């Protein structure tokens, strides 16, 4: 029975991890660059939600109304003003730029908010649970997180398949030079894609802040989880993040069952196993490009 409970918890945890991975899968899938500041942006999102809830007196979930458009704009600006400047020079500039940004965000958060751990509050939502058996209940918030991911994935799938902009995103991922011949400016596409990724990061930040407490230096750990999700699910595969998140979550809760010290470790081992057996992940989406 313990194994069953651990699996259920792992799946629910996987919902949050899938959210971590989603924004990263989006940027990698479309721009083929990695954002080392992804985890720090999530934590930044949590802190911004904290500020919005305090200043406007809104509940945490309602802060998304402000956060999503703000983060979209920020992502677009970041891509167009910073990242686009070093396009076409290989992977190193994007790694260095986002690595630098990561350190900047961590320390700016530290200087602004101190190293204290913070929490977001959503009142009863965080304590509500649905009893499955007499001695086992699942939390409403984790279940909600999982549902949010699923809804986001369905929406993104529709967007990529059935809208012109979505198709333009995919075409740009295939070949950013040829799309220009179709009248699509890849730089603009990249800006919009980063905006979209940041909007998802805002959602991720709020849900993370509701689930756990957070501090300025929590970003790198989130980034590792996000990477593991997309490595397992397949780099650049949007739909793969759900299965990636669930596998990572279950691996961690199973490891935890053996020994609490193995919680993160077993997730890493699962990731390395996938890398050893199928380096392109379980559901590779993007096509190899030179």
């Amino acid at each position, binding site marked *: 029975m313990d194994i069953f409970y651990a699996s259920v918890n792992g799946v629910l945890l996987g919902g949050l991890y899938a959210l971590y991975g989603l924004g990263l899968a989006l940027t990698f899938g479309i721009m083929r660059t990695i954002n080392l500041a992804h985890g720090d942006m999530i934590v930044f999102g949590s802190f911004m939600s904290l500020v919005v809830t305090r200043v406007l007196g809104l509940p945490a979930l309602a802060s998304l109304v402000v956060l999503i458009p703000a983060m979209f704009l920020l992502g677009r600006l970041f891509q167009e003003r910073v990242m686009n400047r070093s396009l076409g020079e290989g992977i190193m500039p994007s790694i260095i730029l986002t690595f630098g940004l990561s350190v900047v965000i961590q320390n700016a958060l530290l200087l602004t908010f101190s190293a204290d751990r913070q929490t977001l509050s959503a009142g009863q939502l965080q304590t509500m649970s649905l009893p499955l058996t007499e001695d086992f209940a699942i939390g409403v918030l984790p279940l909600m997180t999982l549902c949010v991911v699923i809804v986001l994935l369905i929406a993104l799938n529709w967007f990529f398949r059935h809208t*012109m902009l979505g*198709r*333009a995103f*995919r*075409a740009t*991922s*295939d*070949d950013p*030079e*040829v*799309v*220009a*011949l*179709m*009248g*699509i*400016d*890849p730089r603009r596409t990249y800006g919009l894609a980063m905006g979209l990724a940041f909007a998802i990061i805002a959602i991720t930040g709020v849900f993370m802040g509701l689930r756990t407490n957070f501090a300025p230096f929590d970003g790198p750990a989130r980034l590792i989880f996000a990477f593991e999700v997309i490595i397992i699910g397949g780099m650049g595969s949007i739909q793969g993040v759900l299965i990636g998140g669930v596998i990572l979550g279950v691996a961690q809760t199973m490891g935890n069952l053996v020994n609490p010290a193995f919680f993160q470790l077993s997730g890493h081992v699962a990731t390395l196993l996938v890398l050893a057996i199928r380096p392109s992940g379980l559901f590779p*989406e*993007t*096509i190899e490009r030179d």
Partner: protein
Amino acid sequence: MTDLLSLDGVTAHYGLFQALHGITLSARAGETIALVGANGAGKTTLMRTICGDLPAGGRIFLHGKDITGIPAHRLNAMGIAMVPEGRKLFPSLTVDENTQIGGYTKRPGAWSREAVYDLFPELIKRRANKALDLSGGEQQMVAIGRALMSNPDLLLMDEISLGLAPIVVNQIYEAVDKIRAAGTTIVLVEQDIGRGLSVATHVYCLLEGRVSLEGKPADLSQKALTDAYFGV
């Protein structure tokens, strides 16, 4: 009447290497221009400068308007479409999606997805297939259809017969005839000189980045063409 396309002393460089040395060329509406020349003569480079893919010196006019230096992604909306060498479809997109992307700028005109499938009926059963899975001939058809979707005034076609079986080449050139009949101005690069001469209203032969011969196909002798091609 102004020319639809005119090039005045166009130059282009790859790093220190100068690939084009002052190309002057013009095309009236409805004309079909064939660019011929040996490998490395600058044909593809010229096409890339016209569609804005490569920065050019000199001046390029479309409908009498100077378009030099305008980036490729804005020229599509102004009426230039390109069928690039090697097809260059979007491999993970389906045939339908590839053609739809071609119509991204929503230029009004007679071409639509239905019209493209009328032109290439063999694509209909492949509509839902990814471009990755198509044969070379089918890929070429999609590439042409994709370019037509923007209803271009000027259609650039680079090596559309390369690597295809003769029967497929015939099919493709039948389609080219229909596109010409619809009044689209075409500039095409063709390795097969005979093929190029048969569709062209005007031929430009390039040699080492310069125009070595130009004229109407009927006016050019085989000897003059061979000399211009090989630079004798």
